């Protein structure tokens, strides 16, 4: 926090970053631009994941932070640098399991629902009648998980639109990679289906399990963005998992010296065997070396299964 004359450590760090806007094409200042961008990216993720409000977080704030993350990822994609942003590599499944399921109903209206009352209303020519606000509320209460199961009827969005993603693990992202028509809702459904079979959605499940086309490694960069605005509660659920614990001690330069052994939460440590390896692989470029060029990230099904197991905590 600025003020009262006391200089924070971060101030020193960021004094070099702030000020003039640096274009990414400037030679010597490219590093500082990249550094600034990375810092902002990390701050943005922390804001979304670290927050455990008792009340719903502000939608405006969430949207603005998401847009920031998306923009940065777009930039990275365009630059062709493929440091996979493996920042939310792991998810503690157990503490979130129930919450996850609770949140499930709210997911359902992320997929375009075929038969929600609101949709019916919108079929009526809007110019001719007013929509009672009461009808708009129904979509918030749609609890049919089956509605998500909409894949075949929905054209798969182009990879560029995948920028805003579910706030859950990259394991889910992997599932999406395998699904031809991924949305976070479906990925969640797939995860749930794969995980506990309680929601019998064989179609989606099969999709997840089956080998579908994998997205490009660049699309892989569109990693963990909490696109789930409806479930503002869900971001609150993720505070058990703090990126801090897994990746950064704090937002100072120590973030660039990743030490997997510092992850403190029990859930995170459970994930450590999987995440640490992945993270080391992917974070190595951060710490000391310049940006490494294309490293297509491939994950086969066995690794995926392993991650799913870890995710579910079995």
């Amino acid at each position, binding site marked *: 926090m*600025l003020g009262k004359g006391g200089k924070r450590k971060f101030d020193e760090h960021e004094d070099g970053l702030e000020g003039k806007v640096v274009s990414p094409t400037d030679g010597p200042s490219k590093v500082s631009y990249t550094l600034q*961008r990375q810092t*902002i990216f990390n701050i943005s993720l922390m804001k979304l994941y670290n927050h455990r409000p008792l009340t719903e977080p502000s*939608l405006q704030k969430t949207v603005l932070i*998401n847009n*920031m993350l998306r923009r940065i990822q777009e930039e990275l994609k365009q630059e062709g640098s493929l440091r996979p942003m493996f920042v939310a590599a792991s998810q503690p499944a157990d503490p979130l399991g129930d919450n996850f399921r*609770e949140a499930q109903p709210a997911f359902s209206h992320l997929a375009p629902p075929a038969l929600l009352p609101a949709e019916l209303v919108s079929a009526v020519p*809007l110019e001719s009648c007013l929509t009672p*606000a009461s009808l708009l509320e129904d979509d918030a209460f749609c609890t049919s998980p089956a509605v998500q199961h909409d894949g075949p009827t929905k054209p798969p969005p182009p990879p560029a639109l995948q920028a805003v993603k579910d706030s859950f693990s990259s394991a889910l992202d992997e599932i999406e990679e395998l699904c031809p028509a991924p949305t*976070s809702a479906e990925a969640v459904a797939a995860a749930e289906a794969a995980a506990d079979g309680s929601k019998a959605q064989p179609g989606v499940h099969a999709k997840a399990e089956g080998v579908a086309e994998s997205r490009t490694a660049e699309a892989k960069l569109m990693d963990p963005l909490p696109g789930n605005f409806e479930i503002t509660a869900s971001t609150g659920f993720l505070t058990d998992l703090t990126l801090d614990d897994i990746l950064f001690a704090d937002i100072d330069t120590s973030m660039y010296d990743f030490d997997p052994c510092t992850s403190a939460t029990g859930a995170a440590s459970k994930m450590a065997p999987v995440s640490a390896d992945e993270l080391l692989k992917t974070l190595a470029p951060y710490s000391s070396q310049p940006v490494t060029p294309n490293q297509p990230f491939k994950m086969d099904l066995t690794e995926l299964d392993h991650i799913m197991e870890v995710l579910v905590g079995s």
Partner: protein
Amino acid sequence: FLGAGGGNDIQWCFSQVKGAVDDDVAEADIISTVEFNHSGELLATGDKGGRVVIFQQEQENKTQSHSRGEYNVYSTFQSHEPEFDYLKSLEIEEKINKIRWLPQKNAAQFLLSTNDKTIKLWKISERDKRPEGYNLKEEDGRYRDPTTVTTLRVPVFRPMDLMVEASPRRIFANAHTYHINSISINSDYETYLSADDLRINLWHLEITDRSFNIVDIKPANMEELTEVITAAEFHPNSCSTFVYSSSKGTIRLCDMRASALCDRHSKLFEEPEDPSNRSFFSEIISSISDVKFSHSGRYMMTRDYLSVKIWDLNMENRPVETYQVHEYLRSKLCSLYENDCIFDKFECCWNGSDRQVEFLSLCTSGSYNNFFRMFDRNTKRDITLEASRENNKPRTVLKPRKVCASGKRKKDEISVDSLDFNKKILHTAWHPKENIIAVATTNNLYIFQDKMN
């Protein structure tokens, strides 16, 4: 106006301050909205604890021509209580987001107050008489034995100590999935709008079980959501026209006669981005936190993080005037992003509309360190003033403040790094007829007025 003396310059003096003195601020006491009523006689504040406090201006004392009437507490009531949303397992804050007064039609006063989810119409009425002399009841309310009644009398009203009562007359609930950020009463005085992050609803003041959706920007796929509604207001004269602002710095003007659902705007006001000022935070600082029509309805004022802009409704492609509130923060945006200050929602207000003050055209908006800024559209001058208990004796003229952006700090200047970002002035209000302004710091309400000679 900048206090340079002469002519039409206003010299602002400290008048009063309301609220607790100690530095330890109770969360519930944080002021969240400030609003004068249409005559200026009443000044309402809402706080984070869901309470509304109304101050009333004393009638001007003929002998004391040096100052206008003081504001004293008139009524205090609990408008909203915290609630729990069981579906999402989250609390619904009782914080009062906005208060809007209805024009006075009879002896009672009415205002709308809203939290994130529910709008309430409150009636504030005075009682200064009570009936006495009932036939069947004693004065204390006990019923008399009818057999002891031998004569009849007519009850009469006798004066009593003034009692101000607030009662909720309407509760407008269950129409907003997202957080309500604005309410605005239509010039027909029969309807009003309420806006949340994604939708705007139209209500009739008499009808609580139904409201109509007039704007809906919720995408079919929430993952595609990139823009939210930040503020909305009805046009002061045209009852079918309203505007709403967005988190991307746009303002849309809509006409309700065009279609039932005003998803297509009639006008879109947006200033092209200045490429030389481009940064990671361009979008965030362009997010509009407040929009206010001028009294004539010809102009509107918007507030984004660093500036106040005046728009002519006839020109959509750029504002006619831009005033920098605290440009020195532009180089600090990364820190302000990190500590969340960049998301602070500053409001803005025009000066009053009465003939007396109409020759003025002043815009007011708050900043940090308990500073607030005023911009004179006529002279293009601006001033920074501070709301502080120190150095403020009644009727002493406020000293202009100055922030030193960089370099050598002059005497009496404050450097950017010394600013206290916890002391923010988000809410300001201007008396509709006189040069009196109410400025809310975190938990105190300051009243300033111009020096009357």
